[in-house]
């Protein structure tokens, strides 16, 4: 009688999806390489500006009245991006917050970078007139008109300072210059002011 020997049959291995397993990271130094990635350097994570530069981002935020504009202007200064303009706009921000001494500080830092920065001179004129120092305001408005003779608002504000200083003829000249340069939509108030001044000056 023959004996039937059972042939060992291995069940076929099921082929199917295979899970990804976490592999142990090779130690690069085992292969003679310097491992530079084990420890991340202690660097702060800074969100990069969306608008291309910190200054542009600050300006966009500033235009929309976002308080974080100040932080971005400071970053712009730190990264040497439009430094003088950043100082100038920080001066405006501080002035709107009522911190006039800090506003002067920033605006003069702007002038330290560029003594012929016309916006800084014009804005300093505004800050000094808010402080009641009309003589200094006058000097800065005059400088602003000399650096940028085509900017109308410097003449208007200079005119108001001259009215306050009771120098009516000079005020008339300055406001006339404003009318010459400003768009017609802004003429009405200025013309009324000139009429009143002419009546006073007579």
């Amino acid at each position, binding site marked *: 009688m023959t004996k039937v020997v059972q042939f060992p049959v291995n069940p076929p291995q099921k082929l199917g999806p295979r899970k990804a397993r976490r592999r142990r990271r090779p130690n690069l130094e085992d292969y003679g390489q310097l491992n530079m990635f084990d420890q991340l350097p202690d660097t702060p994570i800074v969100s990069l500006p969306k608008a291309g530069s910190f200054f542009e981002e600050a300006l966009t935020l500033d235009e929309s009245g976002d308080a974080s504009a100040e932080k971005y202007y400071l970053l712009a200064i730190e990264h040497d991006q439009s430094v003088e303009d950043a100082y*100038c706009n920080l001066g405006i921000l501080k002035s709107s917050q009522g911190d006039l001494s800090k506003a002067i500080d920033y605006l003069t830092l702007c002038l330290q970078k560029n003594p012929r920065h016309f916006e800084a001179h014009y804005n300093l004129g505004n800050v000094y007139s808010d402080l009641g120092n009309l003589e200094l305001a006058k000097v800065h408005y005059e400088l602003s008109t000399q650096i940028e003779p085509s900017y109308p608002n410097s003449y208007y504000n200079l005119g108001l300072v001259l009215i306050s200083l009771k120098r009516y003829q000079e005020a008339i000249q300055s406001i006339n210059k404003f009318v010459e340069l400003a768009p017609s939509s802004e003429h009405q108030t200025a013309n009324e002011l000139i009429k009143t001044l002419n009546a006073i000056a007579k």
Partner: protein
Amino acid sequence: MTKDKHPILSEHFERLKALMPDVYAKHFKEERETKNQKLFRMLKHSLGVIEAVYLQNSDNFSLSKAEEYSKIIEELKELGYTYTGQPELMNMAAKFMIMKAKKPMEKATGNIKKDNQDRQAM
């Protein structure tokens, strides 16, 4: 019952009162003063205190405080009272109010504006 008034003198003073009511009114000022007049007197006294503080140290007086002072005087005028106010303070307030009409600050726009200006110049 005491008779403290002499009839002839009393009659004489009554006639005088009728002839010069203003003179006699002064004697009874406190009694006759209305509530509004009392308030006006108190306000004048307070304004006097403010003026004294200003004259002692004008540096402590900001332009906005001067403007508030002038507003009180304007309101008094509107209510029919006359109070001229301290001339220096009024002058300071006038300057402040003129300068309030000034054009706003101008932002610096960095290189963007400068590039445009160059193109305009050409």
